[in-house]
């Protein structure tokens, strides 16, 4: 499994780590990180599957424009992971219900 990314501790001090839940599993996050960064650090890169062709997508533009990182966060669907700060206990889900119905 690819690890996806890793946290850098050089040059900054972080607060205490906490846990967030992603698709039922717990991962570590730090205050000040976005959910996208926390997921990347945990080796999770696929954040959603596309509606038509069901292809994997993840972080791309990082600044809230491309809409690729949309996930359900704390029950609110289509929330951008790159724009949402991780908070202790927050619930993150990959949407599985968006596949287009047959015409």
């Amino acid at each position, binding site marked *: 499994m690819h690890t996806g990314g890793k946290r850098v501790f050089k040059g900054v001090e972080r607060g205490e780590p906490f846990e967030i839940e992603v698709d039922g599993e717990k991962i570590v996050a730090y205050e000040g990180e976005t959910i996208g960064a926390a997921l990347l650090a945990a080796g999770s890169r696929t954040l959603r599957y596309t509606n038509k062709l069901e292809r994997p997508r993840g972080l791309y533009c990082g600044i809230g424009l491309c809409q690729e990182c949309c996930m359900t966060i704390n029950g609110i*669907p*289509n929330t951008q992971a790159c724009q949402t700060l991780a908070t202790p206990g927050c619930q993150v889900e990959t949407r599985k*219900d*968006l596949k*287009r119905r047959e*015409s």
Partner: protein
Amino acid sequence: MVPHEAEVVVIGGGVVGSSVAYFLAQAGKNVVLVEKGWKAGEASGANAAFVWSITRKPGIDIRLAMHSLGIHKQLEAELETDFEYVRGGGLLIIEEETQVPFVEAHLKKRAEDGYPLELIDAKQVLELEPHLSEERVLGAVYSPIDGKTNPIFLVLALNSQARKLGARLLHHTEVLGIQAAGGAVKGVVTDKGTIKTNLVVDAAGSWGSFISEMVDVKTPVFPFQMAMLVTEQLPPTVSHAVMGASYMVEEDAGKNEGLGCGLIMSQQTAGNLLIGASWRKAGYDKKTIQEEIELIARVNVRAMPMLKTVRLIRSYANFFPQTEDDLPILGKVDGIEGFIMACGHGGHGVCLGPGSGKLIQELICDGKTSFPIDKLTLSRFNRAGNP
């Protein structure tokens, strides 16, 4: 470069003009369609996408609608490209007690005319559309044959097939004038050349009068702005064409009061919801205003609370070619030979367009239509533009 001549020149490339051109090409006529902008660039590309009969009034209105619904079905089978026509059913939601008398009166008149409608209770409505808010559903009128389509794809499909059948379609080409002599049409002057023809169909929608005035005929069509919102794609959420009865009440009241809004929603095949709709008299202004966007959001979130977290990704507005009696203008025009009207469809262009196309084709080829439409000619309006 435009063709030198044609048997028929259709002016206007929206759903009405495209339907006329398609059926004429199918009947073997040498047709040229001239559209000043791009494909489905005006009202045909910015509407509620309904193909619907519930709110049609008794008389010629419902007959036109039923006929056109049949033509939609026919096109679904005939056209090679899919235009996402789905007869998922239509619901006219009774949202408040005050709407009940209007709805009941409508049902009565429709039954008397031989086009009855079914009334269902709130429980049944919520079974059909479970995301609707209980508080805003007292019952509904239900029609299984109503539904939605993708109007842009419909226009593209009509265009593409018409071309295969020999029609020539000129987009980004503007009609500058119509040549007439001795009370008869002789040709159409465009910004890219002149087309010799004895027969012109004015399917220019909100510009219907701009075109007819080229032969000194005034058409009482005025632009009526309506706005809708497009949401991001959702899983299957709404399966019917849903309209709120406030629409019917407002329509009755003449839609004269500044900014108004009635519930309209449907889900496109791609998953986006088209929600609306607001209306206002804004001349030829296609821009949406902040108030109407917020108003549409308010009305729809009240009707379907789960929409709170659904995101708007764009809005659109366009003006519909409205007539005083809310009926289209179809047929020949007194005093000028070879000039046929096919415009003024108001907010019902998508629904009635294909039917109008077929009727105009019949009129041109056979001299008569499959059911009488003489009540719909321009002559029904007096000088003041009132019917």
